[in-house]
């Protein structure tokens, strides 16, 4: 494969214009390689979510270049015709709040992401079930999201993000709703996925207790990368 899975070059994002313009990201450079788990920290408002949203193609950058899997996605304009298809096939997104669809049970929430990709329902459910087992929530497969505990719901959401075997996994404070024990389990899981699937994983977190679970920590401040450090682990 040509180049790193995620490559961000001089990426900027400004919200609004004129006097009220907010420069959320300023010329950020970042690379995440296959199999790497990178942590993103920084004070509130420093641009962490914005960076994630840009990489996920949820928001459009104002300047710079973004490539995913060696393919240029944005360099002044979108280079990919169907962004949703790109997200569906190559990007897994884990929200801070789980964002499960309340009207589908756990396994269908996971399987849905596959059926959207054209996989038939029974095959999708089979893979979804296996993934839930792997994330140790297989027993809750037929439960509705409202009946899941915070940790269970978050793991179902992680299963949904993983189900299409995305090359890039983006997680915005996935452990915020979890106790430190659960948080560590989730992080270990992501590490395992990165290794098994050779995925590039970028995780926003404030949680110092799990900093040691990352290959590398990137710190943002005022929309700029303040420091990048290899983890002690």
């Amino acid at each position, binding site marked *: 494969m040509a180049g790193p899975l995620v490559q961000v070059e001089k990426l900027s994002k400004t919200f609004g214009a004129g006097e009220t313009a907010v420069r959320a990201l300023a010329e950020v450079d970042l690379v995440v390689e296959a199999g790497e788990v990178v942590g993103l920290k920084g004070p509130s408002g420093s641009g962490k*979510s914005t960076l994630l949203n840009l990489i996920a193609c*949820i928001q459009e950058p104002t300047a710079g270049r973004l490539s995913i899997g060696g393919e240029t996605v944005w360099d002044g304009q979108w280079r990919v015709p169907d962004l*949703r298809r790109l997200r569906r096939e190559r990007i897994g997104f884990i*929200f801070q709040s789980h*964002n499960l*669809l*309340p*009207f*589908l049970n756990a396994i269908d929430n996971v399987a849905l992401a596959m059926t*959207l990709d054209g996989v038939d329902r029974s095959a999708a459910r089979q893979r979804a079930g296996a993934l839930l087992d792997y994330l140790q929530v297989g027993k809750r497969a037929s439960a509705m999201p409202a009946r899941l505990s915070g940790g269970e719901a978050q793991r179902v959401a992680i299963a949904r993000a993983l189900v299409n075997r995305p090359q890039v996994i983006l997680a915005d404070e996935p452990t915020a709703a979890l106790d430190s024990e659960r948080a560590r389990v989730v992080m270990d899981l992501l590490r395992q996925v990165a290794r098994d699937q050779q995925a590039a994983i970028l995780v926003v977190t404030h949680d110092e207790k799990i900093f040691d679970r990352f290959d590398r920590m990137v710190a943002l401040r005022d929309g700029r990368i303040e420091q990048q450090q290899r983890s002690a682990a």
Partner: protein
Amino acid sequence: MNLALADIRHKLGRFVLTCLGLGLLMAVALSMVGIYQGVVTEALALSRSLRADLWVVESGTRGPFAESSRIPGDVREMVARLPGVAAAGAITLRTAEAQAPQGTIRVQVIGYEPGRPGGPSAIATGRGLGATRFEIVADARSGLPLGATLLLGRYRYHVVGTTRGLVASGGDPLIFMQLRDSQDLQFRLAPAAARRAIAANAGSGGTDTVNAIIAQLHPDADPALVAETARRWKHLAALTDQQQSDLLTLSVVNRARVQLGMFTVVLLFVSAVIIALIIYTMTMDKLREIATLKLIGAPDSTIVGLVLQQALLLGGMAYVAAVAIVFSARDVFPRAVVLGPGEVAVMAGVIAVICLLGSLVSIRAALRIEPQQALGG
């Protein structure tokens, strides 16, 4: 998996209640159509049930329904002899208040000669009229059972047979009796002065007055031609059955069409607005879910399908409820509600179009939802 169904199942109680409420509204709209059809059917029921090809009435009138018509009873024989006429019968028509066992009722009394045209087309229970006097055949709408007695102008009449669905254009049930009985009744019910005048003329056969002669033609006879022959006779006018039906439709039905048509249009418009609002609310309730769907890569077709399927399900279920309500309640309706598969199908089409149009705004709104709206909070 079907997202529209899954979401509805998730909020089933609310959806069912919404459908029922909407169903009631549609039921009213559907009844309007049914009542209109009922008015049309009732208006034509009388002339149809008498199976007349030709109506011979007083000259210069368009009787006997739209205008009053009085002709001598012996005209019947002349009409019967006209070329092309197979059978002719004299009839009288008048509305009257009568004492039924259950109370006072308004009826349309038809006098005819049994064995000649003018009688009921079919008997539901009991038998038709025979030679015995003071017998009547009453329509079921009058509430009179077989064997009951009806008091009309101080005479008692015995119900020997009943019919079904034979009513005058105002909805009054038809009561059939012998022509002689009806002419006696006419005399009894007439004001005193008129009665004296009739009695004075009795010697010259003045009491043998009828309202119309109805003729049944040979299959190959041309009604217009026979009517023309009849018209040339002094003091007579003739209308074909088609002209008679047109007259009835014009006088009775047009007024009803305007009134009921307006109601129906207003109700459908209200339904459309309510459907659009409900669909919009249902869609905006799912704003976050729709944003999430877009975020995990659902194409627009999935989103449009979700909104559209729910709109059609809502309209469909509500319409099924409406049809069920109308058909189970139409017997307790004071007016006839006539709905055939045609009307039910046309209405279903109208509802479907309303649902499609009503969901356009919601679809537009749903397509405008940004994926990042899933992220907030």
